[in-house]
């Protein structure tokens, strides 16, 4: 296998395998169907990936910090329902900050449990998945939530509007990705996230406040979830209680596909964005060559396992696992 430290083309391929595969995939589909690289098609794909994409940005922080967040799906249902409900009672101007506040409070609670109390993140967020789902159902009384006056509100701006021809969800996804990428790669906080995820104990010994860093990764994740909920609510102006159900694992799959290790300490925002785009374009490409949308799940399955397998195979220097 290729040596990861090697310079030149071989080393580049080994390190950026997922990017190379993505480019090859895009070129292949573009040759098969001209429609695939039409600008409106590309916008369409990114716009429909934006909601899951925004959530994936936040989960990237959590995963790099060495934890998991399985609660993002039900938390996203929560923000969507809450903002839609408050829209009709408080009006959109107050509903949006109120929803962000409530969602951040949930994120802070999870951050407190995982960061300060040092509880296992998988079980905490699994419990919160269930708890927040209950909260959402209680809030909505089990009913679908709809905005009463769909014509007379500017609330649809975030999901349906555009700036200079670029759809708003893409603008928001892009901006958030850029900002979070800078936070992760250029700020002391970003470096601390890597340190905590890479080796928590060493980070603690070198004076990094592990608990606080983990706490903030969950706060960032909750902020992203709130943004995703806003996009979802604004796009559909009405929603079921279960709109985000199952998203938690799909989002995690995108982050892993981008190359973040579940052990923590590795991954970047750019790679996650590539993971998100691969999901979106595989679905779109398969649709354009006439296959049903669910075929993508099977393809994604193969892609995820191959991507992770080749990645660890490159690291250990042999293809097959040493498990006897």
């Amino acid at each position: 296998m290729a040596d990861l430290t090697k310079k030149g083309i071989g080393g580049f391929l080994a390190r950026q395998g997922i990017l190379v595969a993505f480019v090859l995939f895009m070129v292949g589909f573009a040759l098969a169907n001209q429609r695939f690289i039409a600008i409106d098609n590309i916008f369409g794909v990114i716009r429909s990936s934006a909601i899951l994409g925004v959530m994936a940005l936040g989960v990237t922080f959590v995963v790099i910090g060495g934890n998991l967040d399985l609660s993002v799906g039900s938390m996203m249902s929560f923000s969507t329902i809450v903002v839609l409900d408050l829209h009709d009672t408080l009006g959109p101007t107050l509903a949006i900050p109120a929803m962000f506040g409530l969602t951040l409070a949930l994120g802070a609670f999870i951050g407190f449990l995982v960061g300060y109390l040092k509880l296992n993140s998988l079980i905490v967020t699994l419990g919160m998945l269930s708890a927040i789902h209950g909260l959402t159902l209680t809030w909505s009384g089990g009913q679908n939530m709809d905005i009463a006056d769909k014509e007379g509100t500017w609330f649809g701006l975030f999901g349906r509007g555009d700036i200079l021809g670029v759809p708003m969800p893409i603008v928001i996804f892009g901006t958030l990705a850029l900002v979070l990428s800078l936070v992760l790669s250029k700020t002391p906080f970003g470096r601390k996230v890597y340190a905590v995820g890479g080796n928590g104990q060493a980070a603690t010994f070198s004076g990094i406040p592990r608990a606080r860093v983990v706490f903030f990764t969950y706060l960032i994740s909750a902020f992203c979830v709130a943004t995703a909920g806003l996009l979802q609510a604004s796009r559909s102006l009405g929603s079921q209680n279960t709109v985000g159900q199952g998203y938690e694992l799909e989002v995690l799959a995108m982050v892993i596909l981008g190359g973040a290790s579940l052990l923590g300490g590795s991954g970047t925002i750019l790679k996650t964005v590539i993971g998100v785009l691969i999901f979106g374009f595989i679905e779109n490409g398969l649709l354009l060559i006439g296959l049903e949308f669910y075929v993508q799940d099977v393809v994604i399955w193969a892609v995820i396992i191959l991507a992770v397998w080749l990645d660890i195979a490159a690291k250990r220097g042999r293809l097959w696992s040493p498990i006897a």
Partner: protein
Amino acid sequence: MFTERRKDLLKQGAIWGFIVLELAFFSIAGNYLSVTDTAFMDFDNMLLLLKQSAPIGIIALGMTIIMINGNIDLSVGATFALAAIVMLDSMTWPFMQALGDWAIPLAWGFALLTGVVLGAINGLIVWKTGVDAFIVTLGSMLGFRGLVFMYNGEQPTSHLNWTLVDFAEAQFLGLHTASWFLLAVALILWLVMTRTVHGRNAYAIGNNRDAAVNAGIRVGPHFLLNFMLIGFLAALSAVVFYSESGSVNPNDGMLYELWAITAVVLGGTKLAGGYGSIVSTLGGVIAIQLLRKGLGHIGADTETVNLVIGLILIAVLFLDRQLNRKGKEELKT
């Protein structure tokens, strides 16, 4: 040694203590708040509870072994759905219809085989590629669900066979068919985990994989066997449940993996592997179902069940950590 054993017993007893607490609470609270006249501790009510625990319960028992082994399986919900579709659809095939009621065991066989094959796929990938089971089964959760949709599109698959419905609704010694399956699976798995070499090795591998390898245990085949087992159990759960309902939607079984894991963790099995018990998982399954029914009984909205289960799960985790830490500090002094 003795205190260690006593602590173990205490831990395994905790879930049953919790169940007794739940029973007492709902019986007393039910007297004041109940929306119906029937008592909560009603015998029929309890029998029904066992039956309703069966679908998740059978899967959770398998998940216990997977987790003792130090792995996890997120694809069981999709396996559940695919097995159900195979069972119901296979009964409509021409040659199967020609067989009359003999098609039933064959249809069960096809469904169970589907589960075993899907489990084997997971197991082989975990074994041969060395990719973490969490990632492998996260991928196959999507992939298997894709297969479910490819089988019959977004349409529900339905086939009612009255012989089958009668069998599923039958009661023997007061227990429903599904309850018998749940109890039988629990008994067999308990024997496997406590009385066989495979069970002992599963604990050893989960506890310390390197040590197990050094002791000459072949880790891979044990992984494979356990994934085949949970695939089989997910299919068995589907077979028992859909024999009665006769119709499966392609989204059925979604999030079952998370419910099963919740039950297993409530039962005290460690995520890190090496520790856990089949009997305690059975307790976890019953505790959740009891909570679900109990909250309904005292007139709470069914919605609050999710909230309560989630918070209890976190509380259990917190208490477990506190108790363990206390134990360790005592050892130090």
